[in-house]
Every structure is written in structure tokens, then in C-alpha cells.
């Protein structure tokens, strides 16, 4: 039972961290709860579809369908998170200054939330489909300890969700002054970390070279299969044995998003009309 709980916990943890961060990072945007719920529902439904289509997906692209599928959904999440951070670098201060003002800009808020809905859906989809497959395996195994294993799965699920809630509540405790910088930094690391994971799947599919593998090895200290490693992977993009190509992806995405944020902020500050508007408000 404990083994099952741990497996499910590890799978759920990563998705829960992402949902927790996204929920915190979108504080103050109207209608956010509905979008988050929608993302979760879409992700769960998708998990079941992907789990049962696993064999078919796996056969695509000469047997590399699973790798390409994983890399693609990670890629989608990276693009969406990049969009979020660039959007936030423009609207974050508005949100902090005056939640009501944001309420008027419903269109922009809705677009942002649709983007985050996709992030939540793909995060849940990726980790969820593996969990569904695992539990399906347990269910059809006819093992005597089946009941205990399913109970274990439920415990793992609850614990994983609990960590996500803790991260969310913890982030909300950050003082408003630093709140957007803190959530932006987390989303930035999340996006870069996901890009590195996507690289890993492309390497596994033999589509890109690994370029020196591994660059370092800290698996003796914190292994990626441990709970601590999973936490650090989810929050910081930690990899105990990164390939050179993964680091290239990490650094490129990290830098690209930072540049995008700086560019958006500069564009915001340039038009004189915008400056006059802030002066009078």
C-alpha cells in the first residue's frame, strides 16, 4: 500500500506544484477559479484518453510517438508560461495596485486565464495519464492486495494535492510588493525546467544529440526519483544528471522569457499616452 501511495504521490506532486504556482500567479484575475477548474477537468479527462490510447500513441513516429507526445505537450506548456510571464510583466503592477481596475479589462484577463487553463490541463494530462495507467495495471492484476493498493493510490493522490495547496497558500503569504516578482520567478524556472524535460524526451527519441551526458551528477545527494528531487524538479527545474542539450534548452528558454518580459515592460513605458494615464490615476 505504501509503495502505491508513493508512486501516485510522485506522479501527482509535479502536476500539483504547477497548479499551485499557476493558481497563485493568477491571483486577482476575474473568473480564475472557473478556468482552473476547467483546466483540471480537461486534464483529467485527457489523462484517461491518453492512458487508453497509450499503445496507439506509442506506435506513432516509428515507435517514438510517446516521446514526441511528451515533448510536444511540454513545449505547449513552455510557450503558455512564457506568454503568462510576459503578460504579467505588463499587468502585474496593475493587479497589485488596483484589483478593480483589472476587473474592467475582462477580455485581457480572460485571454490570460485561457492560456493558464491550457498549462494546467497539460500538466495534469502528462502526470495523470501515467497514474491512470499504473492504477489500471493494479486494477486488472487480480492481486490479492488490490484493495490496499487502491487505498494507497488515494492516499498518494490526497498527499500530492495537499502539497500543491500548501505551495499555493505559502505563495499567497508573500507580501504584495514582492508577490509578482516571486511568482514570475517561479513560473520562469518552471518554464525553463519543462523545456529541459522536453529536451530529454527528444534525446530519448534520438532526434537531438545529448551533448555531453551527464554534465554533472548529484544523484548521490538528491536523486530525481526521490520526493525531494521531485519537489526540486518541479519548483526549480532540478536535474541530478543533466545532459548538455537539456542545459542549452533551459538557458535558452530562461533568457528568451526574460528578454520578452523586459521588451514588454519597455513598450509599456514608452508611449506618452500611457505615462499620462498613470500620472492622473
Amino acid at each position, binding site marked *: 500500500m505504501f*509503495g502505491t501511495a508513493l*508512486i501516485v504521490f510522485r506522479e501527482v506532486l509535479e502536476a500539483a506544484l504547477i497548479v499551485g504556482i499557476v493558481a497563485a500567479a493568477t491571483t486577482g484575475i476575474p473568473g480564475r477559479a472557473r478556468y482552473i477548474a476547467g483546466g483540471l477537468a480537461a486534464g483529467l479527462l485527457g489523462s484517461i484518453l491518453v492512458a487508453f490510447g*497509450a*499503445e496507439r500513441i*506509442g506506435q506513432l513516429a*516509428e*515507435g*517514438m510517438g*510517446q*516521446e514526441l507526445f511528451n515533448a510536444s505537450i511540454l513545449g505547449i506548456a513552455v510557450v503558455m508560461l512564457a506568454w503568462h510571464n510576459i503578460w504579467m510583466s505588463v499587468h502585474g503592477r496593475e493587479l497589485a495596485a488596483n484589483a478593480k481596475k483589472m476587473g474592467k479589462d475582462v477580455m485581457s484577463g480572460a485571454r490570460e486565464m485561457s492560456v493558464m487553463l491550457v498549462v494546467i490541463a497539460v500538466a495534469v494530462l502528462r502526470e495523470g495519464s*501515467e497514474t491512470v*495507467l*499504473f492504477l*489500471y*495495471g*493494479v486494477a*486488472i*492484476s487480480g492481486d490479492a492486495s488490490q484493495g490496499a493498493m487502491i487505498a494507497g493510490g488515494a492516499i498518494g493522490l490526497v498527499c500530492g494535492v495537499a502539497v500543491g495547496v500548501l505551495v499555493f497558500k505559502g505563495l499567497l503569504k508573500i507580501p504584495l510588493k514582492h508577490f509578482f516578482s516571486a511568482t514570475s520567478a517561479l513560473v520562469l524556472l518552471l518554464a525553463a525546467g519543462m523545456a529541459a524535460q522536453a529536451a*530529454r*524526451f527528444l*534525446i*530519448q*527519441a*534520438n532526434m537531438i*544529440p*545529448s*551533448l*555531453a*551526458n*551527464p554534465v554533472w551528477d548529484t*544523484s548521490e545527494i538528491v*536523486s*530525481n*526519483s526521490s520526493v525531494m528531487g521531485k519537489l526540486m524538479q518541479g519548483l526549480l527545474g532540478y536535474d*541530478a*544528471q543533466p*545532459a548538455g542539450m537539456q542545459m542549452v534548452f533551459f538557458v535558452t528558454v530562461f533568457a528568451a522569457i526574460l528578454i520578452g518580459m523586459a521588451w514588454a515592460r519597455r513598450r509599456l513605458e514608452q508611449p506618452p499616452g500611457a505615462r499620462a494615464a498613470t500620472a492622473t490615476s
Partner: protein
Amino acid sequence: MKRLALSLFLSTALVAFAQDKEFAITIKDHKFTPDRVEIPAGQKVKFMVENQDATPEEFESSSMKIEKVIPGKSKATIFVGPLKAGEYKFVGEFNEKTAKGVVVAK
């Protein structure tokens, strides 16, 4: 630096183009056969894994950077390496107690 990266890329591409050595591994009753696979170090190789169980399995190795779900009664191809000489553990994540193995790169 650029040239180094390019030559690295080309050499890996060439290695990838050459026929990769294949190794067959079977999963049955949540165990790997063979559970010890010797492969040449510094070369990309191919594992042809057949899951004969009815339940799905996830072939996972953090040291070899592999994470692949293999549905029940199906086959999967996994590219491994190039690895430095040494031992690399792998597990079937869905049945970690019994599904264990090691790759030895020489």
C-alpha cells in the same frame, strides 16, 4: 566553441545514422529478462523491450534518462546512451519491487 558544438552535433548525427546495436529485453511477471544487459560504452544502442504481461509498465532509469511507458502485451523501442563505462540501474516503475535491472557499459 561553435565549431566544437557543430562537430559534436555532426559526429553524434553520424553515430546515430550508423546501425544501432539492438538488445532484446522481455518483461514477464513484472521481471526483466535479462536483468543485466552489457552494452558497448560510448555508443548509442537500441533496446527492444517486449512487455508480455497484461499490465502496463514504465521502463525508467534516472541515470540513463529513460522514461517510457510500455502498455501490456506490446513492444517498445528505447534508445540508450551513448553511456560512459559503468553500471546503470533501471526499474519498472509500476512494479519497482520485482522489476529491476542493470545496464553495464564497457
